[in-house]
């Protein structure tokens, strides 16, 4: 289903949601909840090819370009990463390449999850964002 809100509107909504949490504990509990509710990713698609290997969590990412829009499916073995994946998918799924390239992906930092994107060796989330950007650039 094509998104009804713009990327900026969706980001603003997420930032607003997270601003309600005073405690990091609540923030993480919310992310864990999002992670648990992430649309399931088919086990058969967890191939080496789709795997972004990292020292920490593993991330699987599948993407499709259809009718001028990019569609993503992703999963991780770590639940907090899965929660962040869920946020990324809610923002970037079903967007045109132009829309994605116009976004600066800064909302993750704005909701106080900067350390989850720290450039540790082969961070799965960082690679996921790079892949989303690359796919968008390839399909402009």
């Amino acid at each position, binding site marked *: 289903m094509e998104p009804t809100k713009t990327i900026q509107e969706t980001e603003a909504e997420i930032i607003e949601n997270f601003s309600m949490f005073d405690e990091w504990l609540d923030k993480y509990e919310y992310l*864990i909840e999002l992670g648990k509710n992430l649309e399931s990713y088919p086990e058969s698609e967890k191939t080496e090819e789709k795997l972004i290997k990292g020292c*920490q*969590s593993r991330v699987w990412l599948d993407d499709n370009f259809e009718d001028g829009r990019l569609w993503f499916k992703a999963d991780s073995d*770590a639940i*907090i990463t899965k929660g962040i994946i869920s946020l990324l998918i809610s923002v970037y799924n079903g967007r045109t390449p132009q829309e994605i390239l116009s976004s600066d992906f800064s909302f993750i930092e704005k909701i106080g999850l900067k*350390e989850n994107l720290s450039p*540790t060796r082969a961070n799965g989330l960082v690679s996921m964002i790079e892949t989303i950007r690359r796919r968008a650039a390839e399909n402009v």
Partner: protein
Amino acid sequence: MNVTDIRNHFPILSEKLPGGQDLVYLDNAATSQRPNEVIDKYLQLSTRYNANIHRAVHYLAVEATDQYEKTREAVKDFIGAESAKEIIFTSGTTASINTVAYSYGEVFIGRGDNIIVSQAEHHSNIVPWQLLAERKGAEIRVLPVDDDGRLRIELLPGLIDKYTRLIAVCHISNVLGLVNPVKEIAEIAHKRGVHVLVDGAQGIVHENVNVKDLDCDFYVFSGHKMYAVPFTGVLYGKKEILDCMPPFLGGGEMIESVSLENGTTFAPLPGKFEAGTQNISGTPTLTAAIDLCKQLRDKEITDYQQQLAEYVMDALMSDERITLYGVPRGNISKIPLFSFTVKGAHHEDLALILDKMGIAVRSGQMCAEPLMDRFGVTGMVRASFAAYNTLEEARYFIKSLDRAIKMLV
């Protein structure tokens, strides 16, 4: 000295984290925090003794050289080497092992030879040997660990054949924390004419190392895990072996005479392996670090650490949700380093939540992917304690871990 006195040596330990929490630093196996003695030494070297060593005749150069060479003496005494010529300064354990892999490999390893490494090695004690094996057409053999993480030393004699040249093994694994019987390994190896390199990155911090007693051929370690500054490291080698090895890096300092027509002759030990400008402001911090390490081996301190280690060990072992890797049994002892997994909770999630509680632990593969594969896991959480960690911190860690697990499972 008690633990409060020790903590006063380390300025970072009284800092608050940005979130207002106290820092509970349990990532000491990765790098230790720095005491005032080392910080002061580093500052002194920059402000008073900064000159290039071994070259000029001016006052500063002589002083800087003196600082550097006194450090070599201090290291020699600290590890019980025969001569200061056997102490080569490097940038760290990894550089030391690479130097041996290249230089020893040039002379001692040929096609069809083999090198034995243990399954519990850090990547730094695997990859240089793999590169050497590839270069020379040699083979890497693996000494496995059992389910408790102990080296299956009974398999060692069977792994050695007439083509075995070297065994590269850690004194203490950075994941398992068990003290390996390196003296026994050296005995088995030497009976068969095989050399032994001991990766002492963790061992030098927790054990009283005497290289003559261990009778290892090489012992290597880093300064930054034993309170000195980073990019300081040591390669100890027996003189008769080092003498046979060609230089690794070429450049200044390591030469005797250079001629464009007649070629170059090399400096004797240890200069032969110290090409280029050395870490003149870092390496001498090892003297301050060694002094502190010696003080930290005081009985009052080690008793307290023992008590702390037993508390953490009991708490982790008695928790059914937790699997601990590296279980001390029989005559094998364990340093206060605990790597574990939790059923149903990912190591990264645990580390992220603990971080929010002010606790710094390591998570992931810990540069030991073969060991992760051995235990069938993608990563672990590791809490590694130092002499400045308190029982209160240990209790807070166990309580916080329980809270983190409850959030995730």
